[in-house]
């Protein structure tokens, strides 16, 4: 398969592989998506990446749907569909297999040690995601203040995240950023 001539194959191989390496879920894979979409393939600019991250967080459904937006930017509806399936199906198949293997005895014990070993990696990846998106987005003091303000509110209160996103949008509209 010639990857240069057909971006669909690139989407399938990229996200199919990423699916199996996304330890800690979609938000942990954001830096890798940014690396591939902006730096390696030049599918979009930094700003567009920050935009689609915002759109994916604002819309309902699993966070993984940012790959739908990347796929659309690369190859329209076909790209959106292919990227979404490539990101979800390999890990879903693995989950089906492992779930069937281990889940039948309803009180099976999970290798808690492996889980304990992977949690710090997930946290490091998610912190990297925050940095990558922050660097891709518009940068000024207003942006820093809104970002840290939302972080503090989300940490200290039980406010619905959607309201915090909308508050960010209103502040942006008002020209704070």
């Amino acid at each position, binding site marked *: 398969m010639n990857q240069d001539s057909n971006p669909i194959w690139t989407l399938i191989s990229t996200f199919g592989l990423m699916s199996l390496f996304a330890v800690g879920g979609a938000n942990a894979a954001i830096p890798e998506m940014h690396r591939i979409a902006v730096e390696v393939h030049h599918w979009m600019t930094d700003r567009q990446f920050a935009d689609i991250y915002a759109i994916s967080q604002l819309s309902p459904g699993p966070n993984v749907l940012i790959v739908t937006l990347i796929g659309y930017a690369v190859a329209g509806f076909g790209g959106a569909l292919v990227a979404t399936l490539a990101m979800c199906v390999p890990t879903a198949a*693995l989950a089906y297999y492992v*779930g069937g293997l281990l889940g039948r005895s309803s009180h099976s014990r999970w290798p808690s040690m492996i889980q304990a070993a992977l949690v710090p990696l997930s946290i490091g990846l998610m912190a990297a995601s925050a940095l990558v998106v922050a660097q891709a*987005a518009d940068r000024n003091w207003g942006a820093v203040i809104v970002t840290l303000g939302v972080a503090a509110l989300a940490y200290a209160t039980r406010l619905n995240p959607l309201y915090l*996103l909308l508050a960010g949008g209103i502040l942006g509209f008002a020209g704070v950023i």
Partner: protein
Amino acid sequence: MSSESPPAAIVAPEPPASTKSSPPGVITLFFAFARMSLAGFGGVLAFARHGIVEHHKWMTADEFNETYALCHFLPGPNIVNLSVVFGSRFAGIAGAIAAFAGLIGPPTLLVMILAVLYAHYGQVEFLRRILAGISCGAVGLLIAVVVKMLMPLVNRRDLVGLMMMVLVFAAIGLLRWPLQAVLLVAMPVSIGLTFIMRRRARA
């Protein structure tokens, strides 16, 4: 029940669910997951938990935690894994596909509509400003999640965990190395170190 700690994303323990209702069929699974997914702004997990444990009473809180622990342990989007494991437990492969399709299908259509709108209007000035504000909010939410997940490691002075976290952050966030390469080294190292530390703690 199981003795291991629940994954960091799960918070307070639930009051015990008294009764469980009968297992759902394929069509019910599809619509239940579609509803949870479309309600799930900023992550579906909380809505899935509410729907499965409290609303439908298909699982007890403990069963849900255990299923989620498996999905957290597997790579990929946790909630996608959850839909597949959950669906297959009630209705085999058809159930897995129904739950998966319900979770992914309707929001994917919605996101595609947003993609078209963005392609047409993404350069309009006031929409640009709104999106810039929302990205800041999204990053802020992510920072809050990171800090919440980090606190247990800080509180129990898990130096190995904190060190691995910083190394992965530096490799991916600062050096921008490829994910696969970093994880192929970091996973065995982290598992090995955790194993050694636990042995030493027991000795």
